[in-house]
């Protein structure tokens, strides 16, 4: 990646200048919008963000995008860029132009010779998805206006479009126009904003917003796609239209059926698959054991992405299960599809499930569209017997399909019976010919994702410390530590543990690191010692922090006002520190025990002296929640207190 980035930078430097040219009228007009704009807190202001889609009777469409941005401070230079994703085989760029209005220095024009063309997925072995990029940032200084216009022709896969009215920058005018043949109609849904009604003129629809304020970056805030006003549009040919190429969707079941037609033939198990399945489930006695054996195997299939024919539906169609098994690699849909084929060979029905990975709030029920998904997992139909013998954490009941066990075979660190946290609570679509519907994914209970930490330590009279940390991580907490231990080499994992311990215990020497992973639980045991942990004062006091180790990722919410909700990840962390006190010392002062209750969680600590040990316990519970702005002060106080308690010292005094 470093090499590729370096090459991109080198190429950018070789962009050549073109002769000055008058900017088009639309850009000159847009330039007038920002004359009186003032906001010292933002790097740039978008003067115009506009896309026009013209659909022909044969389904082909011509898209034109126009954009103008004014750079307000140096950092705003980074926004003097164009980035236009496209599909290699099906999108044709008719025109790309850019202009930089440099004030008294005139106008610099950019043509197609200035445009970088690069792969949008450098980590894929191959992908049809590419990006046209124009970068004028090196030519830009404060006060300049950058604008671009591009036009493409393509035959889209769907009669659908979506439009983000802004990114993070303030936007003075944002407009989306859809022009269709006579008799066609369009329906739109608005997200993150009150319903935006189009202005309709014949078969041309225009949606528009003005003077959108910036979306500032705040820690632990929702994703920008949950904040920016968005438009989702589906358009429908007239009844007399002869076009059949692109799909319009009225319902989720139509989307499901469309995906089914595209995928079903790829999951037919052949003899190779059947043989492999027989081997895998030879010792499995129950349905869940069979599913687990197959799931574990498919998880071990290497994730490798090859995206061809995306413009013709290739992005939704898996490679055949036999091919994936033979090559032992594939992407998410390949892996889910292989699992489906293998389950079929084992006599178990299952369904592909499309989902959006990374933001559980991304998929909206109001817009039936395959474009809302970026990931594929699986729903396995299970019997009541299997349901009764499981904790049910990832089982969903569908009114038509019955009990479905949800599983993500791409995430090699999340075992069967669990689901990646960024998918929990999200909508996902079951791919079925006639019974597909949008399902809400399960959210696993807090205690199934808990972390139990026990620290057994001994404090010396000189402040030295010998300690053993034992952790038991469950569920998604186990996944994050498992991922770290599996992805890092042994040497790098050791370094990571040493860095963690040394954050609180200066000069700690780690003597042992043991891990144990039975897939349902990840255990870690670390032995370490440090010559000076406690501080001797006046030769009579010994001061130390009972929280010998702390979590690396503590929630820290800054001071000041808050504009967006706080997104909290679930936590259930139970700690017990047993610290043997040195001979000849007794406790003089201990931190106060804490008990805090909040709508989104609770925290309590205790300190006990027993048989020469200081026993410090803490229990932190945080619900996965979106905390509203009104609760920000409470959330900040809560997490400040949690952090402060890990810093609180105990004082021993020489007897």
């Amino acid at each position: 990646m470093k090499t590729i980035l370096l090459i991109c930078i080198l190429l950018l430097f070789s962009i050549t200048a073109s002769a000055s040219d008058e900017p088009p009228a639309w850009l000159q007009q847009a330039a007038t919008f920002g004359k009186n704009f003032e906001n010292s807190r933002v790097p740039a202001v978008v003067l115009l963000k506009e896309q026009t889609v013209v659909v022909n009777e044969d389904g082909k469409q011509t898209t034109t995008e126009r954009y103008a941005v004014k750079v307000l401070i140096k950092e705003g230079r980074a926004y003097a860029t164009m980035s236009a994703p496209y599909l290699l085989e099906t999108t044709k760029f008719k025109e790309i132009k850019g202009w930089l209005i440099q004030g008294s220095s005139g106008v610099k024009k950019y043509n197609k010779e200035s445009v970088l063309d690069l792969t949008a997925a450098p980590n894929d072995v191959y992908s049809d998805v590419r990006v046209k990029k124009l970068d004028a940032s090196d030519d830009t200084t404060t006060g300049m206006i950058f604008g671009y216009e591009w036009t493409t022709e393509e035959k889209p896969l769907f009669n659908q479009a979506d439009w983000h009215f802004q990114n993070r920058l303030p936007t003075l005018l944002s407009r989306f126009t859809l022009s269709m043949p006579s008799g066609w109609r369009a329906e739109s849904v608005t997200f993150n904003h009150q319903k935006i009604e189009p202005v309709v003129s014949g078969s041309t629809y225009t949606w528009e917003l003005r003077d959108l304020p910036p979306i500032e970056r705040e820690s632990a805030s929702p994703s920008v796609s949950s904040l920016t006003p968005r438009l989702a549009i589906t358009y429908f040919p007239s009844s007399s239209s002869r076009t059949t190429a692109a799909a319009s969707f009225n319902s989720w079941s139509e989307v499901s059926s469309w995906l089914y037609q595209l995928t079903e033939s790829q999951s037919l198990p052949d003899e190779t698959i059947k043989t492999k399945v027989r081997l895998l489930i030879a010792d499995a006695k129950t349905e869940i054991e069979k599913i687990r054996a197959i799931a574990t195997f498919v998880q071990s299939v290497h994730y490798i992405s090859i995206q061809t024919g995306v413009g013709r539906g290739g992005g939704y169609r898996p490679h055949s299960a036999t091919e994936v098994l033979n090559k032992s690699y594939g992407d998410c849909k390949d892996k889910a599809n292989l699992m489906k084929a293998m389950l079929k060979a084992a006599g178990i029905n299952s369904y592909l499930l499309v989902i959006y990975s990374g933001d559980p709030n991304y998929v909206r029920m109001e817009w039936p569209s395959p474009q809302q998904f970026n990931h594929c997992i699986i729903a396995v139909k299970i019997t009541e017997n299997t349901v009764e013998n499981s904790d049910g954490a990832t089982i969903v009941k569908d009114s038509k399909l019955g009990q479905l066990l949800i599983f993500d075979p791409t995430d090699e660190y999340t075992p069967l019976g669990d689901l990646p946290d960024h998918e929990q609570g999200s909508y996902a679509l079951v791919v079925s010919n006639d019974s597909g519907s949008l399902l809400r994914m399960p959210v696993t209970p807090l205690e199934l994702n808990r972390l139990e930490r026990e620290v057994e330590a001994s404090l010396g009279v000189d402040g030295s410390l010998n300690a053993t940390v034992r952790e038991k991580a469950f569920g998604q907490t186990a996944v994050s530590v498992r991922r770290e231990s599996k992805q890092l080499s042994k040497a790098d994992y050791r370094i990571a543990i040493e860095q963690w311990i040394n954050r609180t215990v200066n000069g700690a020497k780690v003597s042992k690191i043991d891990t144990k992973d039975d897939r349902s639980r990840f255990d870690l045991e670390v032995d370490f010692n440090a010559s000076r942990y406690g501080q001797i004062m006046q030769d009579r006091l010994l001061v130390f922090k009972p929280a010998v180790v702390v979590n690396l990722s503590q929630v820290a919410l800054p001071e000041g006002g808050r504009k967006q909700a706080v997104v909290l990840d679930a936590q259930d962390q139970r700690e017990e520190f047993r610290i043997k006190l040195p001979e000849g010392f007794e406790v003089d002062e201990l931190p106060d025990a804490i008990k805090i209750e909040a709508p989104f969680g609770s925290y309590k600590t205790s300190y006990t002296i027993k048989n020469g040990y200081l026993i410090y316990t803490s229990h932190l519970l945080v619900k996965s929640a979106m905390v509203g702005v009104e609760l920000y002060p409470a959330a900040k106080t809560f997490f400040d207190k949690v952090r402060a308690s890990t810093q609180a010292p105990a004082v021993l005094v020489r007897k």
Partner: protein
Amino acid sequence: MMKCIKTLIVFVAFFATMLFTTEAFATDWRPIDPAHLALKAPVVEKDADAEAIFWEIKVQDELDGDTPRTVLQNYIRIKVFTDRGKESQSKIDILYRNRTRITDIAARTIKPDGKVLELKSDAIFDKTVVSLNKIKVKAKSFALPGVEPGSIIEYKWREVRDDRLAYYIRLQFQRDIPVQLVKYYIKPLPMTSNVYEMRYKAFNGQTSPLTLDREGYSTTTMTNVPAFREEKYMPPEYSVRPWILLYYKERKDIKPEQYWLEVGKKTFDETKSKMKLSDEVRKLATSLTEGASTPDEKLDRLVQFCRTKVKNIYDDASSLTEAEIEKMKENKSPEDTIKRGAGTGSDINYLFASLATAAGFDARLARVSDRSDIFFDKAFADDYFLNTSDIAVKVGDEWRFYDPSSRYVPQGMLRWQEEGLEALVSDPKQPFFVRTPFSSHQKSVVKKNAKFKLTEEGVLEGDVKVEYTGHFAIEKREELDENSLEQSEKEIRASIRRQVGEAEISDLKMDTSLDATKPFTYSYHLRIPAYAQRTGKRLFVQLAVFSKADEPVFPESNRIHPLYFPYPWSEEEDLTIELPAGFKMDSPTAPKPVNAGEISQYSTKLMYTKDGSKLIFKRSFFFGGGGSIFFPQSMYPQIKQIFDLVQQQDKHTITLKQEVTSQQEGN
């Protein structure tokens, strides 16, 4: 250098009599040793996830018609031991650019049971990673099928670099995984004349002596090469990893001393015209130095003129756009540079040299290397690494070095990359090496002065002033060039939080003066809500406020590479803390000193006012004394210990005890 390669290509094209046909690229694989298939653990590094059994590279210069080209044939066989090895090794991207072709790719997986899975030709993708106009970076990409722990994978490809020769190319021996055997086969362009020859120079490793095989290749090997890993504070990559420099040179045996004499003379000849004196230059030098009483004063004025009156067109601070730079004409003489008031870094240095000469000094161009790339060794008789330059001026009996093109470098210093190096001072008769100055830790200092007030709730609040000098100041000013004031302030706030933890920072004022003779300073108001820890009757206060949230510098117990710090530095802190009413210090002690002799020292001083209401804490630390910035790997425990001890002492706290009031006593 470009001239040399052109001459060489023409020469070769003219005299070569023999056309080489390309060796047919064998698609047959070498037999798999069953022992390798059965191998359960790596040989070179015990915890490796994958290990190359061999990696062979044939480098051959040849003619395709009249056109020279370099052909590199790679063949690598890798044993995969773990899932991590599978993940990292089974997806291959072979990048190439214009005038380069990748051909004859073959790959296969040998499963642990001996089953072979060949890569099919339709599984090799040719993708354009990025293109701009006619420039393209492409990649041949493929994934090896059926890889699992225990598998052997192997692949080979042929890279043809058209219209080029192996002229100063760097050949690697180290990969991201360990390699049992690396073997280079090298075949130069056949030449009928004895004027040029191909040479190679090995760095940082024990390669076997070149031996000629039956096919006419000179071969060299290296065995048991560990994986390359980066570490914090390590020497430049090319000073630690094994590699070969391959180049052509005139076929003559020349000793380094003689070679440098020739290079120094040639440099003098080549730069003479660029430093040419003219009446204009003389007049300017006279007016600039008028009234200056000492050589230093004169030279300082000349440097100041070059920095303030001539715009370095490649400096971020110049605010010139690329288009404006392209429009500019080339300066052919110092006079041109004066007239245009702008030029490249070299133009500015040449102008300075000619002004200094006009002012009566002996000024020369001095060629230096860049120690952020590699450590220069003059025993290697080639000027490849002398890729930058400064101006050497003789003042009295000593040579001083100046780089007016780097506008933020204070007088008497150079950029750290050029300090402490052997510089070749050009001369028409007797060029010579002089070591460039090396700035001591007193030159690069960060000073913090603060006046705080502590409340009984543990809140620390007050005003802070920070001052950077030397290399610190250069870096800060360069950052300021890159960023807006807003961004710079944002970064300063982030850096303060890295030192003190969560805090409120207000009234941040930055001195944006770009004057290299002055320190870079800023001030701010700081409020740390839970700075001191409160127990029932005590407050615990860490004295080293700006080390409150410091992370350990070297938490790792093991070290692979030597340690290397770019430059020596010092830290000075002077804090006053007003204590909360009703609390008094309980037998406070200062952190203990850490003494590492000449290399590093840490000391503190704790004082308090008579009434005990204020404490004054002074902290002083330096590292790199005596120019010690490089330490062998064996010294890692000692260096780690210095930083651990300093951090430990920085965590030292004092106790404030609540005074018992008469009312409380009564209770």
